């Protein structure tokens, strides 16, 4: 009897050791900033000496998020929709949005990559075929585009320093040509039983003013259908998206 109990206990120890001890978690945190400061919706940010802007909506899809290890990819997130509608206080703006992925093989990876926007397969899927619980259904699908809106940036500008933000800026990016992949070469250690945090930052000042070049917010007040401008903005978002 004693022998049987001993064998059972030993098997239990071996079983639990082999099953549970080589996985960890990743916390992917996304924060929008303006010149490094978390963006609080409704607060004023300086575009240039004469113009201030306020943010009303910042929303975007991330898709196909995967850890890279040599040529091997470990998928973390198929798709998620990041809607920063509650970034209405400094604390909430600093907190941003967080995706938590559990049960990842614990080891050292050499990079992470993701789409800002959707993959073509996701974007081309018929709406009625998308599972009800999919984050795709949290975003907007625009039938005339035959596309989801990948990135929504809606702002108001005060062009004459009178504290009245009367100049509307509505920039929507979508369509398969607006898909952008961002890859980061960085050692990511997923540790047994622990959570590793990665902090992603989208600095929107870098979207609006890149390499000293101001985006023409004075004349380009809406971007929905002009594919060239949409692609230009998608490029700027891609460049401004960082892993700290």
């Amino acid at each position, binding site marked *: 009897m004693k022998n049987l109990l001993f064998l059972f206990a030993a098997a239990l120890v071996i079983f639990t050791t082999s099953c549970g001890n080589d996985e960890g978690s990743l916390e992917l945190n996304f924060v929008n900033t303006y010149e490094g400061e978390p963006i609080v*919706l*409704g607060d004023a940010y300086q575009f240039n000496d004469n113009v201030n802007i306020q943010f*009303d*909506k910042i929303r975007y899809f991330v898709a196909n998020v995967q850890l890279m290890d040599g040529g091997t990819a470990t998928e973390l997130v198929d798709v998620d929709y990041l809607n920063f509608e*509650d970034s*209405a*206080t400094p604390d909430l703006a600093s907190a941003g949005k967080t995706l938590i992925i559990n049960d990842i093989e614990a080891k050292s990876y050499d990079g992470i990559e993701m789409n800002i926007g959707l993959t073509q397969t996701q974007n081309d899927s*018929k*709406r*009625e075929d*998308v*599972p*009800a*619980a999919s984050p795709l*259904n*949290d975003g*907007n*699908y*625009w*039938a*005339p585009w035959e596309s989801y809106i990948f990135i929504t940036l*809606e*702002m*108001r500008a005060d062009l004459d320093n009178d504290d*009245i*933000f*009367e100049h*509307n*800026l*509505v920039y929507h990016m979508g369509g398969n040509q607006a898909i952008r992949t961002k890859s980061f070469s960085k050692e990511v250690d997923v540790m047994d039983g622990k959570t590793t945090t990665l902090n992603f930052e989208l600095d929107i000042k870098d979207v609006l003013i890149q390499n000293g070049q101001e985006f023409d917010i004075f004349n380009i*007040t809406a971007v*929905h*259908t002009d594919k060239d401008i949409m692609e230009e903005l998608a490029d700027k978002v891609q460049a401004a998206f960082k892993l700290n």
Partner: protein
Amino acid sequence: MKFKFVFPLLVLALTWSCSCGKNSGGGGDNPIDPENDLTQFTYSPTTKTLKQLQGYPQMLIPDDNPITEEGVKLGRMLFFDPILSVDSSMACVSCHLPEGGFTDNQRFSRGVQGGFGTRSSMPIQNVGYNRRGLFWDGRSETLEDQALLPVEDEVELHEDWENVEEKFRRHADYPRLFREAFGIETKTAITKDLAAKAIAQFERTMIVGENSEYYEAEVLQLPGRFLSDEAHNGLIMFQEEGASGLPDAQCFHCHVPPLFTDFDFKNNGLDSALTLQDFDDYGRGAISGFDIDNGKFSTPTLWNIALTAPYMHDGRFETLEEVLDHYASAGHGSPSRDPLMNDIALTDEQKADIIAFLHTLTDTTFLKNPDFNSPF
């Protein structure tokens, strides 16, 4: 030695858990009072599959409230039954009439004791697709939560849920219907939460659009079904952003086809406000607690819009012409006015074309469907 001690304990625990299981079944040692017993009625629910319209998203159904034929039947009865009100004079349908596109066509809805609310009744067609929050301010996250509130609202049905539950238990039919829908074994197991679940199930079946002129011509593209020239021009201005030389009326940014809403909260410029505290009705801001949400309200669907006047959360516009005039003017300025609100140069003819298009969103087949009308 230890084993000898542990074994009897295990046997005791097993015996206890088995006996508990018997009691929880409602039989065994504590037989149900015959007056309270519902087990003579069969509980054999039939899953109800919702219509999946082309182009529509799949509806998110909560795991704890699957849709059944029996649940929908009960929910429909509760929706139309004045038993939910304090004096048995009003029901959900009193403010959500089928012929009014499931609104009451009043600026403010009148409650059981003659009082009026401060907002107009919302159209509730396709409400099952709403993932952003019910009511004009999104105060309820789910249909199940929403269905609970009007009963105890003093300017609506002004009843007490405990009374309603008692009325259900005394009713000739409801105990059986609750049993058939949810499998409860006793009358005392009838609760407001089950009533809300049933109403929510019924509301999720209210899928509108497939028999409208727009849907048949533009989505299904049925042979011989075309929009009139006026309505077609209206559609272009509604959604195609300057194509065909017509102005972009920018409607579809918020009224996104095919649901013709994004269920989002927006300030569409109804009121002037110098600061975010200057709104009479904070709307979404009163719920979220964020000043930037003050003056924002839920975007309603446009299905059957021609039948749901008056318009806006406070019913201030009596006609679609007034609505078009408002949007073309960009509305009134305030710090939370939506960036999509801009001056739009529309001629009277162009406005009329957009209204012609809006009329193609009327689906009277849905409104006259017996499934969505009174069972009494």
